[in-house]
């Protein structure tokens, strides 16, 4: 069946592809970084000052930047982090993150929970990623179990082995994106709803000023939750990607195919080599 070109697909499908695109995520991140960079180098009105403090800040800024400050102000560049542009970019990233997570949730869940394919076609084993001669079944089992691989076997001649580690790790990426979602949601809630005002000032006549501030920020919860979820999710996704290994053992020849992240593959193969090189009964 011919694959329809992107232009021939219905509008809602094209819109969904756009919203779930990682390129859109990258472009949005780039734009947000650009705004952050501009906000870093251009003078930004501090929001946590009272009216007198803000007036003093404007006076000092006029003295420092002169006519440029009027120019920045006219272009609304003096309050970039509270601007509609920045909040719109954050909202777009929020939507993109949500759509990306929803689009991948089903696939990741199926990937994490479906029954594994225990045996690859023989043609795949004929082109192994790694092989060794003179290996016994016990040695292969021991080498794999030593590093916590869960082993499934199809007994016979040849003997097929399937092994996996960190089966649920693909769901880490869902947690990561959920964390990012809460982070951005918190920034939006903070930008729209957070308030801060002096509540009480007392003792001024005695030369002592006690000022109590009332802070209302509904985004604190989502911010902290987002940070923790993002950290846990990123740790799961980056440190513990799901690792799978298919092996065929035929008359002492072990042929291994790997299905895992490349940086992890190098380590796993090195461990397997070391373990198989040890004499039977050797510990390590």
């Amino acid at each position, binding site marked *: 069946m011919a694959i329809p070109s992107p232009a021939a697909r219905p509008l809602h499908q094209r819109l969904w592809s756009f919203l779930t695109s*990682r*390129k859109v*995520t*990258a472009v949005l*991140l780039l734009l*947000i*970084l650009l705004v*952050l*960079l501009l*906000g*870093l180098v251009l*003078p*930004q009105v501090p929001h*946590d000052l009272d009216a007198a403090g803000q007036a003093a800040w404007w006076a000092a800024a006029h003295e*420092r930047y002169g006519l440029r400050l009027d120019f920045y102000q006219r272009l609304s560049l003096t309050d970039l*982090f509270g601007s509609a542009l920045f909040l719109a970019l954050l909202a777009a990233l929020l939507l993109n993150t949500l759509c990306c997570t929803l689009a991948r949730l089903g696939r990741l869940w199926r990937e994490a929970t479906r029954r594994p394919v225990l045996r690859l076609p023989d043609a795949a084993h*004929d*082109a*192994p*990623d*790694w*092989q*060794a*001669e*003179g*290996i016994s079944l016990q*040695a292969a089992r021991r080498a794999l179990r030593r590093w916590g691989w869960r082993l499934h076997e199809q007994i016979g001649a040849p003997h097929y082995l399937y092994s996996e580690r960190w089966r649920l790790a693909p769901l880490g990426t869902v947690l990561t994106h959920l964390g*990012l979602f809460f982070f951005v949601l918190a*920034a939006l809630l*903070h930008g729209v709803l957070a308030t*801060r005002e002096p509540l009480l000032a007392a003792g001024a006549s005695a030369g002592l000023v006690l000022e109590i*501030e009332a*802070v209302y*920020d509904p985004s*604190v919860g989502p*911010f*902290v939750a*987002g*940070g*923790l979820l*993002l*950290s846990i999710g*990123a*740790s799961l996704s*980056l*440190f513990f990607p799901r690792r799978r290994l298919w092996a065929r053992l035929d008359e*002492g020849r072990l*042929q291994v195919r*790997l*299905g895992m992240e*490349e*940086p992890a*593959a*190098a380590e796993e*193969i*090195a461990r397997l*080599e*070391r373990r*198989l*090189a040890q004499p039977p009964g050797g510990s390590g």
Partner: protein
Amino acid sequence: MSAALLTALGAVLLFAGTGIAAVVLLARHGPASAPSASRPSPTNRSLGATSARAKRVNANGAPLDSRPSPTNRSLGATSTRAKRVNASGVARWCIGSGGYLLLLALVARGLTVRGLPLSSAYEVSLLTAAATALVYALGTPRRPAALGGVCAGSTALAVLVLAAGTFPAGARVAQPPPTMLMGIWFPLHVIVSAAGYGGLLLAGSAGLLRLLRGKRAKSKLDTLIAWGLAWGYPLLTLGMTLGAVWGWTTWGRYWGWSVKEVLSLITWGLFTLALHTRRLQGWKGWVHSAVLTAGLAAVLVTLLGAEALARGLGVGMEYVF
């Protein structure tokens, strides 16, 4: 032993480790060992690998074909390769020991002031340099050792040299921490963030090398980048969250758009972008390397240049860590 002496010894070990790793790397890519450059790296053995990549060994690890292989190296099959592995191991040991000495220097500073030695940007730079060295020495795979040594050692050394050059002698004197930095959240924030910066500096320097070297040793550099991001990104995220909690307990706000906070967010955003570009068609080449290099620059500016930048922009900073 004084903190300054321990710092100097640490720097010497970092320098030695970087030098040895660089020599190993140069020797490996020299004309005498040209065949080894075409040897498939362990990371090539992905699911899509062809049968030509598979290597044949017997139960004792001896090769059945003539092509040199990583197995030969790990089992000490040839003396030349064993020497190279040992040299890489020495480089790793030097860099790791340099990291430990920098930690000891911080402990010595802490004993001097009878408090946590994290009250200045210089001390945080020491901690970050130590974290970069230790992430490489303890937290990355044994291969590629020489390339990792060059990246981690030179970056940790650069952080030390830049810190010594950036901060005046007065700012490098150990001071007791001010009240604002007391409590549990600030030390947690700084330690976790510095550990995160360590991993990200490793990833960023590997990205810079990837940008400069084009396709040479790309898979090895990708391995380093992946491990650097795996260490750095979750820890920096956690560090920023802990910093937000500290900000909430100290100032009643978790985010304030100060120069330091914006720089941290830019750093975090750049590495978030790098995580997305590394698998993105059309972006995973030089764009990915450029993003990582920008991330490296952002970490260095956040660590060492935030105070100067704030002064230059005429805005105050509540803290400089």
